[in-house]
C-alpha cells in the first residue's frame, strides 16, 4: 500500500533501527489481560520487541485504516489500548470521512483532524511529511 511504502522508504533511507510492518502481523500489547491486535501499518524501533513471530509490546507508531463495518473499534477501543500500551503516535485514516485523526500521546496532541488534502507531519520523526492529496485516491476502499 502506498502509505506504508512512503514510511518504509523513509525508514530505509534513514538507516535507523525502525522497521515498518503491515497487517497481518500480531502485536501483543499486554499479557494480563491478553491483548493481541493486528494494526494495519506500524513502525517498530526496538528490535528486542520482535521475536520472529510477533511484536511483544507497543509499536512506536500505528496507522489504522478505518473499517466501514466498525469505526468505533479504531476510534475508541484501539485508541484506549494504544494510549495505555504507550504507543507513541496513532493515526486513524478514515476513507469514508476523508480525514486523518492524529494522536501524539507524548506531545499531548489528542484527536487533531486533517482533511485528505493535507500534508501531515509524523510527530515521532523530525522530517517525515505525508502528502495525503497524492495518495488519497488510493485509500478509497
Amino acid at each position, binding site marked *: 500500500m502506498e502509505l506504508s511504502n512512503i514510511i518504509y522508504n523513509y525508514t530505509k533511507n534513514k538507516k535507523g533501527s525502525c522497521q515498518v510492518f503491515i497487517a497481518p502481523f500480531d502485536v501483543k500489547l499486554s499479557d494480563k489481560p491478553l491483548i493481541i491486535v493486528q494494526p494495519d501499518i506500524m513502525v517498530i524501533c526496538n528490535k528486542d520487541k520482535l521475536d520472529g513471530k510477533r511484536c511483544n509490546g507497543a509499536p512506536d507508531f500505528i496507522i489504522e485504516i*478505518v473499517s466501514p463495518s466498525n*469505526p*468505533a473499534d479504531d*476510534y*475508541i*477501543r484501539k*485508541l*484506549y489500548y494504544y*494510549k*495505555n500500551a504507550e504507543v507513541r503516535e496513532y493515526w*486513524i485514516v*478514515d476513507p469514508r*470521512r476523508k*480525514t486523518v*485523526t492524529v494522536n501524539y500521546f507524548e506531545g*499531548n496532541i*489528542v*484527536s*487533531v*483532524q486533517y482533511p485528505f488534502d493535507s500534508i501531515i507531519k509524523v510527530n515521532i520523526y523530525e522530517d517525515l511529511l505525508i502528502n495525503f492529496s497524492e495518495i488519497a485516491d488510493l485509500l478509497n476502499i
Partner: protein
Amino acid sequence: MICDKSKLDEHGCKGAPDWIIEIVSPGSRAMDYYTKLSLYRESGVREYWIVDPMKQTSLVYDMEQAAAPVIYSFSDTIKENIYDNLEINFSKLQL
C-alpha cells in the same frame, strides 16, 4: 442526562446515562479522552462530549452513528444528537 427513570435509585444511576459531558481538567485529561471514552462506549452511552477549556475545543462522540469524533471550537454552536432541536452555543458560555 438520563432518560430511563428505572435506572435511578437512592444511590445514583445503575446503567449508562444517555448523554455525558466531561469538563477536562489537567488531572483528568487521560481519563476523559481515553479511559472514560472506552468505558462509556462499552456501557452503552449514546453521546459523549469532552469539553476542554485549555484547548478551547469540544469533542463530540455520537456513539450511535459515526463513532468518529467531531471537533468544535468554543466559538461554535453544537447540535446535540439525541434531541432534534437542542443546540448549545459555546460562545455564550463562560467555561
